[in-house]
């Protein structure tokens, strides 16, 4: 299958904007890109004059498929709230590719998502990265284990405090996390010494965090929760990312100094909790000024994936440079997920994941004309 889009304005991310550009897709990869290309005779050619092409958008924090919508309890598999530490569970096993949320992805030009458990538990379980088209989740997977989910702040203490169990305070939450890491260290030592012990799936996953094979991705909204995440990361010398990072603007210097990635959002949502009191688009603007690398996220379904481009547009309105906003939904999340060699920019050799927009994708009224994943058109908009 050879597919070419011609006469488009290509927003490559890594190599600027190519006017009246052609992009050729073969066998799931981008094989040529530029102006005045000679196309293979058997390529299907689509003229997209006046339209804009971006890489497929990447949402580094989503619950698509695992927090299914509109079917109530039966489709909600996002929080295994039976213990504050469920490091052994996998979001992979809870994802339904039939969830309407995947359609939202395609309608909004989102071609790759990181999906994880929610933030009800201090340690929630395995996260993974997948493409957003397909029927068998295993075939959609791009990276089967992309991080371990953890959570600070209101949610775990709300869930377990309500059950009169630990944690019921922020102190308790931090203690549960430290304790789990310490126990995994001990388990790892015994393992290294060849001592016999029963396999513990939870500790096995925490060992991967301790050995920096995967990051701990820590839900933290308030500045003090972010500081706690950084404190614990320093203590255990682990790699973390800051998920939500709502008050990151208040301690942007610290985050920049520690060179920690932030996944910012869902800012296009309501201030539903006390920890969201100061949520606003000043966060990406000020993180950028401080030099923090960050992605913009939907936290789908909190914001439907369809609106990722609008979330980025609102950051632009509040003063984020356009190229930074574009990188925050393409290149940066690709790097955060360790997948920039495959996705996140329009470059020869990368996966053929792209979006054709009716106009500037930061515009509220911009429409997706085509969403392409692995060289296949997986969504085509109506009359444009």
């Amino acid at each position, binding site marked *: 299958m050879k597919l070419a889009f011609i006469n488009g304005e290509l927003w490559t991310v890594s190599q600027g904007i190519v006017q009246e550009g052609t992009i050729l897709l073969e066998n799931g990869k981008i094989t040529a890109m530029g102006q005045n290309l000679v196309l293979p005779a058997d390529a299907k050619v689509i003229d997209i004059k006046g339209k804009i092409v971006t890489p497929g958008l990447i949402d580094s924090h989503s619950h698509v498929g695992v927090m299914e919508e509109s*079917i109530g309890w039966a489709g909600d598999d996002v929080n295994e709230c039976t213990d504050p530490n469920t490091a052994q569970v996998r979001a992979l096993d809870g994802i339904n590719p039939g969830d309407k949320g995947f359609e939202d992805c395609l309608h909004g030009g989102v071609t790759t998502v990181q999906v994880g458990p929610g933030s009800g538990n201090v340690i929630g379980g395995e996260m993974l990265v997948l493409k957003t088209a397909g029927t068998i989740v295993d075939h959609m997977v791009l990276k089967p284990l992309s991080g371990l989910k953890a959570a600070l702040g209101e949610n775990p203490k709300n869930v377990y405090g309500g059950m009169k169990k630990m944690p019921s305070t922020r102190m308790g939450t931090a203690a549960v996390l430290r304790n789990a890491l310490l126990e995994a260290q001990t388990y790892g030592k015994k393992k290294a010494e060849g001592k016999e012990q029963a396999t513990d799936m939870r500790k096995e996953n925490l060992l991967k965090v301790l050995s920096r094979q995967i990051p701990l991705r820590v839900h933290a909204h308030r500045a003090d929760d972010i500081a706690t995440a950084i404190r614990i990361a320093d203590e255990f010398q682990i790699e973390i990312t800051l998920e939500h990072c709502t008050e990151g603007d208040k301690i942007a210097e610290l985050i920049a100094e520690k060179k920690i990635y932030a996944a910012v959002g869902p800012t296009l949502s309501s201030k539903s909790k006390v920890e969201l009191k100061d949520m606003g688009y000043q966060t990406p603007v000020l993180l950028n000024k401080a030099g923090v690398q960050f992605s913009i996220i939907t936290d789908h*379904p909190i914001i439907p994936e369809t609106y990722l481009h*609008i979330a980025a547009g609102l950051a632009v309105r509040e003063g984020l440079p356009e190229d930074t906003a574009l990188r925050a939904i393409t290149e940066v999340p690709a790097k955060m997920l360790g997948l920039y060699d495959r996705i996140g920019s329009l470059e020869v050799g990368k996966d053929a994941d792209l979006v054709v927009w009716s106009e500037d994708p930061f*515009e*509220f009224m911009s429409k997706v004309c085509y969403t392409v994943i692995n060289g296949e058109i997986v969504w085509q908009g109506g009359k444009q």
Partner: protein
Amino acid sequence: MLAFIHATIYPISSPKIENATLLIQDGKILQVGQQISISADAEVVDCQGQVLLPGWVDAHTHVGLWGEAEGRASYDGNESSGPITAQVRGLDAVNPAHHSFADARSIGTTTVQTGPGSGNILGGELLTIKTAGTIIDRMVLRAPSGLKSALGENPKRFHGEVMKRMPSTRMGSAAMLREWLIKGQEYRKKMDQGKADPDLGLLNVVKVLNKEIPLRVHAHRADDIVTAIRIAKEFDICISLEHCTEGHLIADYLAEAGFPACVGPTLGHRSKVETQNLSFDTPFALYKAGVKFALITDHPFVPIPFYNIVGALATAHGLPEEATLRAMTLSPAEILGVDQRVGSLDAGKDADFVIWSGHPFKTRSRVLKTYINGQVVYQG
């Protein structure tokens, strides 16, 4: 006297005017148009390149009483102690200092209807207010502006599932609503005979039966909408259809029934089974069928600062721009019964308007100033 000149003005009640002037005095609009003579003592504001619109009117919100970032202590959204609380008033719970008011002004929303949620069959009094002020009683445009009612999932969850009491089904919800309308009819008879003891809840039901205020019925699913219409016809009352999420599936029936719809919150997710067909196709379908409708945020469900995005997306889904703007201004004002005061830029109406840096549906447009009663209440 204050004159805003050289603006692109959308009066809403008439087509867009380029290079136009808006003249205001003492909190009211004096004149709108092109050839307007400005008296020498008027203060003149040059709005070259700027867009001037009436303040948005959001017909369905919970501004000021939902708690949100203030936490549980400030949550006053549903008096869920019983399924019938017709006696309670949103007025007594709305906090003018709540951040949602500042949020509303920041996007040019100058009038909102706010009040109880949808946990109860009869939830209480709604009120329509301006979004600036410190004393709620002085912000009121109309109170009560309706009695809240709810069908569908919420009441049966709040009461049936959580409290193990009626209603636990849609049948139960409809039956309770009918029972209370009948009680209201009997109470009205006693009132007429001078035999009625004061009853705050039944007095409100009587207002509905007398068509002094509408029953504003939360109904997402098509069958719930049809139930609301069935009961309205049985009791000959006025209703508005709140949410109307599946209205596009029965648009012709809605048009025939003649009741208005408040559509939204569409810029959100399909959080419940009854919202599975949530779509921006709904407003366009209602428009084509000839239903009167307003676009709503249901703040905080769609945060009120994103109201212009709601309009932009409805337009992107086919609704003509003129119809969209009307659904955010004059139509909601009519549905709330306050259109003699707000909703369009016409002589004699309140000077509630917004100066935008560009068209409100463009991402990079900003609200420069919001005016209520001729006073600046927000400056960007």
